[in-house]
């Protein structure tokens, strides 16, 4: 049976689906990102990764040098999760 909640939910799900479909249609063509790129960050990275960071792997140069602060946050997220899990499964008695 369709409760009121489900009807409202389905309707707004259709609206959200419309949102995502429009997003999918108006994004640039798959495989051709050059069209809409204004400041070409990635080509700059690909060209200068060896001279600026000395790494052959551009992804590693991005992860650890250009956006190293994100990686610090990422490592912090993992640290946080471990601390949280150990906190949740701790013993309660001293």
């Amino acid at each position, binding site marked *: 049976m369709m409760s009121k909640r489900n009807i409202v939910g389905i309707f707004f799900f259709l609206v959200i689906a419309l949102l995502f479909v429009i997003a999918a249609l108006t994004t640039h063509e798959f495989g051709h990102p050059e069209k809409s790129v204004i400041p070409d960050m990635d080509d700059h990275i690909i060209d200068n990764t060896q001279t600026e960071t*000395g*790494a052959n792997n551009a992804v590693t140069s991005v992860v650890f040098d250009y956006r190293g602060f994100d990686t610090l946050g990422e*490592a912090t997220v993992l*640290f946080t999760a471990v601390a949280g899990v150990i906190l949740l499964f701790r013993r309660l008695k001293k």
Partner: protein
Amino acid sequence: MSEMSKIVKTISNIAFPLVLIFGLYVIAHGHLTPGGGFQGGAVVASACAMILVAYGSVWTMKKIKEKHLSLFESVGAIGFIGLAFLGLLFGLVFFKNFLLGEGLIFSEIGQGLSNINTAGVLPLMNFAVGLKVIAGLFAIILVMAYATNKLKGGEN
């Protein structure tokens, strides 16, 4: 979870060093080949998870406690942020790649199919993050397996 049969234990004993070596290779060549600290650490942690599945969480918990693992993880994290602080000290900017072109270790500029002695602090950061990911993921798996085991045993 309880321990499994002798076949599984033997196979995992054989497979464990191979997976370990492969994971360490991925960590060490992070700046040259696909992969890096996170990926290699995940590989090694999966090897440890295989041992956990084969031998059971109680046995593994006897061998290594999760607090030691979290200490290892703290060491890895401190190494990572310490490298960033060293960049602040020597390169005068936080997260500066201060080893590059200094003539010390890892100081060469990677050209073509280059050797491992490149990319400044990136390999060191790879090692730090690798240690951190190994310890962290294994700690998570171990603690959750042990807790669920206790839950099945009925003693909360």
